[in-house]
């Protein structure tokens, strides 16, 4: 009876943790299989422990090249989408102007559109214009679909910002430029950072739109896709695991620094 009561009280916790397990299971598999030594071309079945792949992560032809292309595109797409998106977000929150509804729809629609639709239509445009598919078309596409997410993230932050803070800055002898640099930007920074991070993750991991508009350029997700057909090298798992660890370490480090700073101040 006590057990049933305990179960009832903690049902939500148990169900939640099971879901968390479901979310993390593939990452566990990816990590474990990065130490595998598969017999055939595919790394789907456990054979024997080996650190070969970790010792030679770029040992597969073209993989690290595709990784570098993906990183470059992600960095430029992040910069582009963050700058353009932040500008739009400020315009939307801080100013009144005509065609506000139309602008809002134009921001919302790319998020409410299946990727494959955007991918196909963008390819139609590029084909019609006779554009050379490759790095630049991928970058254009990535900025396009990251833009809306940045706008949403920055807008939320700017909207929750008290307009009196900027008025207070003006009242204390800061001109428009000073007000923006000293008050608006620092306070909006977390929102902008969140938007940029999101843009980076979306761009780096994008497959569908990239697949349509890449021509013969191969990004990392495209390399993985191709390898699912031809044979999956263990190095893919190494990269996947490393990226997971780096992300976790980054966040943990940020939290530790933040905590320490708060303690010092208190």
């Amino acid at each position, binding site marked *: 009876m006590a057990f049933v009561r305990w179960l009832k009280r903690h049902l939500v916790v148990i169900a939640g943790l099971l879901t968390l397990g479901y*979310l993390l299971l593939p990452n566990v598999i990816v990590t474990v299989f990065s130490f595998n030594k598969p017999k055939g071309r595919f790394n789907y079945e456990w054979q024997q422990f080996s650190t070969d792949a970790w010792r030679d992560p770029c040992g597969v032809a073209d993989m690290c090249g595709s990784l570098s292309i993906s990183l470059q595109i992600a960095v430029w797409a992040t910069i582009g989408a963050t700058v353009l998106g932040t500008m739009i977000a400020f315009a939307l929150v801080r100013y009144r102007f005509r065609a506000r509804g139309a602008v809002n729809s134009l921001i919302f629609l790319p998020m409410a559109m299946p990727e494959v639709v955007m991918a196909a239509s963008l390819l139609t445009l590029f084909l019609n214009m006779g554009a050379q598919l490759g790095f630049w078309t991928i970058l254009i596409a990535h900025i396009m679909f990251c833009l809306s997410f940045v706008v949403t993230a920055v807008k939320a932050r700017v909207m929750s910002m008290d307009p009196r803070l900027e008025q207070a800055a003006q009242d204390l002898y800061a001109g428009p430029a000073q007000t923006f640099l000293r008050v608006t930007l620092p306070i909006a920074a977390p929102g902008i950072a969140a938007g940029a991070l999101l843009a980076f993750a979306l761009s780096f991991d994008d497959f569908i739109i990239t697949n349509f508009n890449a021509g013969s350029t191969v990004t990392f997700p495209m390399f993985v896709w191709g390898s699912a057909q031809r044979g999956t090298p263990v190095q893919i798992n190494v990269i996947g695991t490393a990226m997971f660890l780096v992300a976790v370490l980054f966040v943990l480090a940020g939290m530790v620094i933040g905590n320490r700073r708060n303690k010092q101040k208190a």
Partner: protein
Amino acid sequence: MAAVTEAPPLAPQPAEKPPRKRGRLVPYWLLLPGILWLIVFFALPMIYQASTSVQTGSLEQGFKVTWHFQTYWDALADYWPQFLRSVLYAGAATILCLVLGYPLAYLIAFRAGRWRNLIMILVIAPFFTSFLIRTLAWKTILADGGPVVGALNSLHVLDVTNWLGFTSGDRVLATPLAVVCGLTYNFLPFMILPLYTSLERIDGRLHEAAGDLYAAPFTTFRKVTFPLSMPGVVSGTLLTFIPASGDYVNADLLGSTDTRMVGNVIQTQFLRILDYPTAAALSFILMAAILIMVTLYIRKSGTEDLV
């Protein structure tokens, strides 16, 4: 009064025009580059695609606009099973995401205590491993004769799913179940994050107030917590359903030719068969279907301000 003497002189300039009037054009300058980008690379392609869908011709002789609407009917007649599958799979994955994601979001918002940040990180961190790599891991998890399939088999779950047509024989891989499982996995964080955001805003005292007013825990959930989390439920289901219905990665990697979704068809038509009008018509139908469903859904759930 030392500071006043150091301050720059504040000369009267009554003739000057009110400086803030100059700012009328500022929003337009701020909007211009981004909006132009979206018009050229999002809106304009839609128009190109609309025109492509009513063209006829061939790759060799070129395509011409002939207002050939028949393409739409042909596409629907040929590919209605894939459309149906897209809606069913995406719908099933959305419901599963809601059922699986709600407890986790609830756990993070109300029960995690000092573990909250850690669990949050664990929900987001998998994002940084390419989703294709993680989807491929499901091939290992659901492998024929593997522990998961074995367990499902001995528990006779597979008998039930076989009877329902979700699986066939002793396999999970290359069946609808595997595709739905992959879709659910891929879009689960998109459900959890908005759910968490709206749950977190709920004042914990509301639970106490409901309890004080004679509501049992489950009644509290049904009458207070869940209604208040509706914005999260609505945006979560949209963020899951929309990308899932256009996805072709899961159907390709985890499914078979019998699980092809409309995304697979568009991809093949566009990139392999090079039948641009049919592909354009298909993606237009998909877009229209989703826009209609989303509009109806938002109307019905009464949450207009999602952005």
